[in-house]
């Protein structure tokens, strides 16, 4: 762990040119975004494809607070995160009242409606003409500017990871994970599932907005088409899922793989739209074959190779058979403990 931190901290001094630093910033930004996404996705199992909207809102609100309300850049960043948190409450209210499918639909709709609003309301948002965010450190050289923001993003990542870790080991986190496993059951045991979901949704939106706002301050030019993009939300999901949503470092790992992969595939296969195909196939493969991400897949593989793992594959199959029955709602096939043991070997 210490080595990773050391590498992350010394990266700017190792980078041969500001370009590598911008790639580093992009990857850390991805990591913050997917970690933020994972507050909802990882704990509760609710997949949001619309977190791009919160990032865009964070960026735009920060920019508007700086340009229209003359707030200092970083005050604007925090005020903007607070405003997004407030907005996330009614969104979560609508999205979380019903389960699953409606949540996904609302999350996608959120990006699309924000895109429409920020395009149409051009007298306020600049619309398609774009919005320029004044630099927080005027007069700073571009490469220094990159370096400062690299560390700011790193700090935000640390805070997000710490928050995730605190929740993960808390009673609140226990309740959230119970929601992911079986929401009805969690309710029947006294977990106020709706409130839990709403709270963690707001936390997630807030961190996403902070990442978006910081990005806005760093990048400087906002355009609704790029800020409110469904694809950026999908990348968050891909990264978190690829790394493993149940693990603290899963989204971070996913961000490093996907971020580096995007950069690499662009260098290699630059000018074809095949990057969409790659992203699509990768997402499909992850969903079909390793929905728990590479961390468990890799540990599972190692465990199988060395035969040290606690779980055997056939056990999982037995459990899933039962789960299928649970979902199907048909009469339970009488499975006595004795029979189960046979399956378990």
């Amino acid at each position, binding site marked *: 762990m210490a080595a990773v931190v050391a590498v992350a901290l010394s990266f700017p001094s190792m980078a041969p040119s500001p370009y590598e630093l911008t790639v580093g910033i992009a990857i850390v930004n991805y990591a913050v975004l997917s970690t933020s996404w994972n507050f909802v996705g990882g704990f509760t199992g609710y997949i949001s494809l619309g977190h791009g909207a919160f990032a865009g809102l964070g960026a735009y609100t920060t920019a508007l607070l700086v340009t229209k309300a003359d707030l200092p850049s970083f005050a604007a960043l925090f005020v903007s995160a607070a405003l997004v948190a407030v907005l996330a409450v009614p969104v979560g209210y609508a999205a979380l009242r019903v389960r699953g499918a409606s949540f996904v639909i609302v999350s996608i709709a959120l990006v699309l409606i924000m895109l429409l609003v920020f395009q149409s309301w051009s007298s306020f948002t600049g619309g398609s003409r774009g919005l320029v965010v004044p630099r927080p450190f005027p007069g700073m050289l571009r490469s220094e500017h990159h370096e400062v923001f690299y560390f700011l993003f790193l700090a935000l990542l640390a805070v997000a990871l710490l928050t995730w870790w*605190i*929740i993960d*080991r*808390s*009673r*609140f*986190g*226990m*309740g959230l*994970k*119970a929601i992911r*496993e*079986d929401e*009805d*059951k*969690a*309710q*029947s*045991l*006294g*977990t*106020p*599932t*709706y409130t839990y979901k709403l709270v963690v949704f707001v936390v997630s939106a807030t961190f996403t907005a902070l990442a978006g706002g910081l990005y806005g301050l760093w990048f400087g030019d906002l355009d609704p088409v790029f800020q409110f993009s469904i694809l950026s939300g999908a990348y968050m999901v891909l990264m978190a899922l690829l790394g493993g949503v149940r693990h603290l470092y899963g989204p971070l790992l996913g961000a490093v793989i996907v971020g580096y992969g995007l950069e690499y595939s662009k260098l290699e296969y630059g000018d074809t739209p095949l990057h969409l195909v790659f992203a699509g196939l990768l997402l499909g493969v992850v969903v079909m074959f390793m929905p728990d991400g590479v961390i468990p897949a890799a540990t599972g593989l190692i465990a199988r190779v060395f035969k040290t793992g*606690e*779980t055997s594959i056939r*056990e*999982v199959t037995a*459990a*899933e058979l*039962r*789960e299928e*029955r*649970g979902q199907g*709602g048909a009469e*339970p*096939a*009488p*499975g*006595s*403990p*004795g029979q*189960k*043991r046979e399956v*378990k070997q």
Partner: protein
Amino acid sequence: MSAKENEQGQGQEEGKEHGLATVGLTKAFGGVTALDDATVSFRHGRVNALIGPNGSGKTTFFNCVTGMIRPDAGRTTYRGRDITAKPPHRIARAGIGRSFQLCRVFPRMTVLDNLLVAVRPPNLLAQLAGARKREETERARYWLTRMGIEHLERAEARNLSWGQQKLLELAGVLMSEPELILLDEPAGGVNPALIDRICDLVRELNAEGRTFLIVEHNMDLVMSLSDHIVVFDRGRPIAEGPPSVIQSDERVLGAYLGV
């Protein structure tokens, strides 16, 4: 905590105060009426059973009472308090715990964590405290021990056998400190040895002051275990009474045989 509850439970004068009661509970799904103006009450401190043919509305009744679905009409009270259409977690906190028709545990959490989910933090700040506090873990182990599955506490629930999962589910319900426990087909898909085990547990827990309401198809179990039986047909009660009365009730036979 549970000891204090026991005293409360035994302090009630039996029969005088109704535990769970509904008035005119009605629920329709599309064109199908699952509950039809069901007015029924159960005895506090006793083992109650709810029986009836398939599709007679027993599970819908459970779901309405525990807030999982919202009834179209009617009221539910528990010990005099109106709990109609309250969210499920409030009903759980009012002291009603339930199991599900097909046993439901949190498959990818450990056995111990399955119980710790039921712990209710006393205040907002305690939400963020660590989830594995010592005294709670001790209490969880107590229930696991009583169920006889304490050796599995670190296993993921999905790796347990069906019967072990049934016991785990019951332990989870007990961890939430209910006064009234609704069991939906506790003997479903369970081998005879385990059925006996579950019966014993129900008797013991009842003796400690917990009230039970059991939906079950296994008539031997129902007749031997329960003090009071309510029979449902087509979404409403058609008969109630002690096992001896129900066994000889013609309407009950009619309902079951479809006469």
